[in-house]
């Protein structure tokens, strides 16, 4: 195994860990579908960045930040998530993104391409993923209290709208970081599926979050290895590994 691959695996493992951890809240907040579709928004951002010769991660990050602020705004203003609206908006960004992304880059933007992950990308990803992880830990208890009851959290002085905004921005950031590994079509799945699998086997919050992190890491590491040695796109490989874990966890729950 060469150092290049090891570096790739380390970067990917960190993205997987942070995704699984952030996803654990997403699943409890019943926002799985929003989380899943959110990644589509990255595509037009990447396309615009590519057109101007900028780093696509930056484009994805900007587009996702705008989208997460939008979701947050809608969610804070109404009792239920305006899911239909979110669905329409995300699909629109995907369609526009497909049209404006330069043809040679389209496939790798949609499904991820490991070859395109350079050293600088890797370092940015490692530092940012670690930061996202730590910040999420910082707001974890408040988010969970909000899951039990938003009123209860707010009555004890927690500014839930702010906590929710920070959380969604973290999700947007991790999606931007993961897009190179998994692609815009499937990155959302890396946030949701490991956490959904963890929920099947968890007995308490600590084990739920640890399983979410572990499943996220396993999905990326095995997905990248399979993609590398079988010669397929990394996105489907990573997501199918996570789906495999989900199926096992489901069978475990049934027994």
């Amino acid at each position, binding site marked *: 195994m060469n150092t290049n691959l090891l570096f790739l695996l380390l970067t990917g493992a960190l993205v997987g860990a942070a995704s699984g951890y952030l996803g654990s809240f997403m699943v409890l907040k019943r926002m799985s579908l929003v989380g899943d579709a959110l990644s589509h928004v990255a595509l037009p951002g990447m396309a615009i960045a590519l057109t101007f010769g900028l780093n696509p991660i930056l484009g994805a990050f900007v587009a996702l930040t705008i989208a997460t602020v939008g979701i947050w705004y809608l969610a804070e203003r109404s009792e239920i998530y305006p899911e239909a609206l979110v669905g329409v908006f995300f699909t629109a960004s995907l369609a526009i993104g497909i049209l404006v992304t330069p043809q040679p880059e389209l496939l790798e933007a949609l499904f991820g391409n490991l070859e395109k992950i350079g050293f600088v990308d890797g370092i940015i990803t490692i530092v940012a993923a670690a930061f996202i992880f730590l910040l999420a830990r910082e707001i974890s208890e408040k988010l969970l209290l909000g899951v039990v*009851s938003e*009123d209860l959290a707010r009555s004890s002085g927690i500014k839930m709208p702010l906590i929710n905004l920070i959380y969604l921005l973290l999700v947007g950031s991790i999606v931007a970081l993961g897009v190179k590994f998994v692609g815009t079509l499937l990155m959302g799945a890396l946030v949701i599926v490991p956490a959904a699998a963890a929920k099947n086997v968890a007995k308490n919050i600590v084990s*739920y979050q640890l399983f979410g992190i572990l499943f996220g890491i396993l999905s990326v590491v095995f997905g990248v290895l399979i993609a590398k040695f079988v010669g397929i796109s990394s996105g489907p490989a990573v997501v199918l590994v996570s789906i495999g874990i989900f199926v096992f966890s489901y069978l475990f729950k049934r027994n």
Partner: protein
Amino acid sequence: MPKDILLSVSNLKVKFDEHTILDDISFEIQRDSTLAIIGPNGAGKSVLFRAILGLIPYEGKVEWAPNIKIGYVPQKLAVQKDLPLTVSEFLKFKEKDNKKIESVLEAVGFQKGISEHLHNDKRVLSTKLGDLSGGEMQRVMIAYALLGEPHVLLFDEPTAGVDVSGEETIYELISKLQEKADLTIVFISHELEVVYKYATNVFCLNREKVCFGPPKEVIDKESLQKLYGEDIHFYQHHEGNHNEH
């Protein structure tokens, strides 16, 4: 604000869109007293709680005594059945000290050593919130409120979704809490019997203030008619022929 006043509300008005839910509400709560809030469904009782807690926008003035710690027990919480959060983890959001948690759990009736401390052979602390019965959940929520050592406890229908035996336990608990020094209790209720038994004052609410004062003085036929409408059938409720079908 006088020292013995815990909360002073004046000219409170709450509107959702164009609907006025609460109008011109003014009252004061004495420190270390027990206030019951009664009124028909849709009278705005929970909205009043949410307004004085600052959870929703309102017009008018809500003034708490300085440095007041509030414990809030929301109405029947619907937690997801498979939420992987245990009672212990939930209570630790507020208090990390295990001893304090144990003693509060005992105070709300999960006694050590006897079967009640257990839930399906598991200690209640390691039980998931979603696996608790309605009464157990309510007591855990009360425990959570008590952990902050509050000066006031706000109960939104403490016995909603709780079976009859659990209901008694919760009211016994409330009466036990009344003995605590400097603890004011405010609860929303449907049951007049309970109001007579436990409340120092009662607040009859139906969008506006209908009556306020000691239950024996202010609850009469007139105020109840004003509160629940002309045609009240309190005692006929459980009568009549149920075997018609």
